[in-house]
């Protein structure tokens, strides 16, 4: 592979000790930067033979610690595998290496009239491999679906180093749906090295709107009503007053700051359909007492709005150096009541919580801001975070909508799944990876006495009370 692409200096390893989730850290023992599937396979085979754990990493933008080498071992960074191998405009597919940055694929597609729909907020930096591993969502997936809905084929290096190709240029599954199983498996079932993705024809008409509300209730109700009406906007996003302030500072975009809640909505399709939907949308917004409704006049305006929305989470960096966020999904009819409870929790623990999320999917992102150096604050945000999770689960929610479980939410898995449910998943893991080498200790709760004591499990995020350490 060449010495240049094997990193083992102490400072080099430290740079890989975490991804965008800053709560838990562990450095790998070596980092390799392969260029081809064969190289990945060689590294994995070596690990398999010598029982060395390995973890794949893309751009390290994940928020659940998915790329964190929790057991040390080899970190396989796939960002150099960044070739777009084929764009098939006739069949609406693209075949890519997994290190291709999501936004770069869309740049390459610009002239084709097609686009790759899943657009996580980190799309300017995140790789498609990471998107596939985490089954990433995004702003437009309310209409276009999440990553798994767009994956036609995968090339995978299995945990024993064997290479397999699954799927082709069609959506159908051939035999058991291993693609469906691998997408979102967070690198625990093998390392995906190539993918064929489904492309979507660009709509001819796109319109974006911004609506402000004086109460969270009216915004939440508007969302519920939009969904119940069967109107499927191509985006339906919520921002609270604090987020609007942060975004305005970072992007100078001039969102109105005099309201409690802002909805960003996009409609797309043919002109005829969009006009029709616009009427229905406006009626719903005014019925729910929207203070003001603006529409983006030009494509540039629209892009500016979405760029600001996508940068919102990072813009919180202007207030506190770190954030801890949940990614729960709740039934959309519960939005208002859950949001109000979250705000109350913030008040109670005196923690700053910014809410910016995919309202149309019911996918909440309460961002709890904190300073890692402030031990007292750390305790408060962990307590608050726990309470937020309770509220969401009580409302019929699930742990994660698009960020993945990783290490950051694994201890909560048993609150959602029975022992039998979890065992089924663990058996699948064991069938793929009997030696537990591929991205070890992820997704499933870490049990006491598993010999993982070398980890600094003092971290409260890793552990729960009772039977789980």
């Amino acid at each position, binding site marked *: 592979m060449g010495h240049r692409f094997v990193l083992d200096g102490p400072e080099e390893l430290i740079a890989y000790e975490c991804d965008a989730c*800053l709560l838990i850290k562990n450095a790998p023992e070596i980092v390799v930067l392969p260029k081809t599937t064969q190289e990945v396979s060689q590294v994995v085979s070596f690990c398999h033979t010598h029982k060395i754990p390995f973890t794949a990493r893309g751009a*390290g933008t994940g928020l659940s610690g998915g790329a964190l080498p929790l057991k040390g071992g080899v970190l396989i960074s796939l960002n*150099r595998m960044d070739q777009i191998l084929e764009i098939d405009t006739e069949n609406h597919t693209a075949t890519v290496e997994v290190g291709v940055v999501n936004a770069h694929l869309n740049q390459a597609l610009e002239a084709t009239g097609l686009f790759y729909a899943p657009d996580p907020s980190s799309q300017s930096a995140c790789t498609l491999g990471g998107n596939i591993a985490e089954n990433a969502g995004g702003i437009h997936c309310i209409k276009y679906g999440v990553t798994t809905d767009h994956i036609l084929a995968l090339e995978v290096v299995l945990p024993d180093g064997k290479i397999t190709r699954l799927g082709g240029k069609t959506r159908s599954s051939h035999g058991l749906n291993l693609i469906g199983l691998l997408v979102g498996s967070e690198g625990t079932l093998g390392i995906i090295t190539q993918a064929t993705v489904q492309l979507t024809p660009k709509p001819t008409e796109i319109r974006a709107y911004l609506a402000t509300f004086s109460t969270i209730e009216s915004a939440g109700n508007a969302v519920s009503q939009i969904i119940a009406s069967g109107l499927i906007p191509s985006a339906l996003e919520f921002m609270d007053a604090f987020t609007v302030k942060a975004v305005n500072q970072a992007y100078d975009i001039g969102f109105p700051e005099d309201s409690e809640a802002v909805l960003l909505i996009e409609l797309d399709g043919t002109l005829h359909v969009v006009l029709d939907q616009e009427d229905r949308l406006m009626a719903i917004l005014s019925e729910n007492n929207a203070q003001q409704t603006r529409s983006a006049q030009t494509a540039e305006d629209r892009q500016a709005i979405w760029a600001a929305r996508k940068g919102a*989470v*990072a813009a919180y960096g202007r207030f506190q150096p770190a954030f801890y966020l949940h990614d729960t999904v709740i039934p959309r009819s519960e939005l208002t009541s859950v949001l109000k409870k979250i705000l109350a929790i913030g008040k109670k623990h005196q923690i700053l919580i910014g809410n910016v999320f995919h309202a149309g999917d019911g996918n909440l992102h309460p961002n709890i801001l904190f300073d890692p150096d402030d031990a007292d604050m750390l305790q408060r945000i962990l307590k608050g975070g726990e309470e937020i999770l309770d509220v969401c689960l009580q409302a019929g929610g699930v742990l994660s909508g698009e960020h993945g479980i990783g290490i950051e939410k694994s201890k909560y898995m048993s609150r959602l799944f029975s022992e039998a449910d979890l065992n089924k998943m663990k058996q699948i893991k064991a069938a793929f990876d009997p030696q537990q080498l591929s991205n070890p200790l992820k997704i499933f709760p870490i049990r006491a006495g598993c010999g993982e004591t070398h980890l600094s499990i003092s971290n409260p995020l890793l552990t729960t009370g009772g039977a789980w350490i």
Partner: protein
Amino acid sequence: MTFSEPSTPLPSTNSLLNSLKSCIHCGFCLPVCPTYKVTGSEVESPRGRLYLLKHMLQDAKNESDEPNEHLQPKQIEPHLSQCLGCLACETACPSGVPYGDILHQSQKMFLTQKNPFIRHLKRFFFQTVLPNSNLLQFGAFWLRLYQKAGLQRLVRFSNVLSLLPLIQHYEALIPPIPQHKPFNIGMSFGNPEHERVALFTGCIMDVMYNSVHWATIKALVNNGYYVTLPEQTCCGALAYHGGEDDIAKKLARKNVLSILRSQPDWVITNSAGCGSTLKDYTKLLANDGIYAEKSRLFSEKTVDIMALLAKKPLKPCRLPIPQTVAYHAACHLHHAQGIINEPENVLHQIEGLTLLPLKDAAFCCGSAGIYNLEHPELSNDILAEKIRHIEATQAQTLVTGNPGCLLQITKGLQENANPMRIAHPIELVAESYSK
């Protein structure tokens, strides 16, 4: 040459740590970082560099830990010094991390880590050679002779330099040194009634691209400006980026005083690197007594030639320029000064000229001050990427607003024997005005 240890006040750990806190590790900076792109290594990315710096500073504060496990400055310094300083990461950063400032502060910290001999050699260069235009012209004279007398051809043909790869690399960077049409301090052009601009000539720019200055003057006069050439010296960019603030300050004070004395409405640069440094004088001289206010005024007046021309429509051009042109955005224009659309907006007004899109136009070319001299291998990798995109445009002319970029891209195209013309955008503007 003095070997006494120069005294640059070290930045406080706390203030640096505070700046570092705004990085939330989101990774948005990775795909825009040229060194990350060619190395694939997170340590050569803005996020990685900041993370290591933070780690080291925290280690140093934390006395209870095992000190021998602490990250040492000497482990981090190479990665920070591999940074081009293109500041593309600042453009991409949603959290507003002041990367340029942090880099600058840390470089001051790392000065003591560097080889003292090389450091003093550099200081000599920064403070004695660059600001001395006579000395520069003297050097240029000999280089010109080397090229004109056929010696260069002989050297390149005989391939003797292959024995000394580093020298060969440097030799390749030397562009044909054009005939110098000198300026005299105090010269002025155009109608004194018009808006008054002071032309900042810079050091390297003046030697290598003297013709660009003449083009600048022509374009300005044709657009109704009165151009003056007040007394001035090197802007100090290289010293400033190298963390040698004492030298940079000296030069800055000199420029601020003498140029402001000419009472310009604008201070014009046609070198992106100089421009961004002149604008940074505010920061550099912020605590420098009477210079604080003067440098603020000075920086406010400083404007890149293309940004100035973009303020109003061009005076009608008389000659069409039927050329296809691609624009490479110099980092110190695009990222450091936020001058993004102006150059193309100006070029757009020239009749017959067709602008072709250049992929990753705002990606660094690998020149970055003296980076191409210090890190030839990385610089070449970054350049190769740039040249690939430039060649893909199949434009007749490539334009860019910085001497470093002009040198670097010239070298890259020459190696590929590509006859594409390389110019400063103002040269095309000037050409569109008949004599």
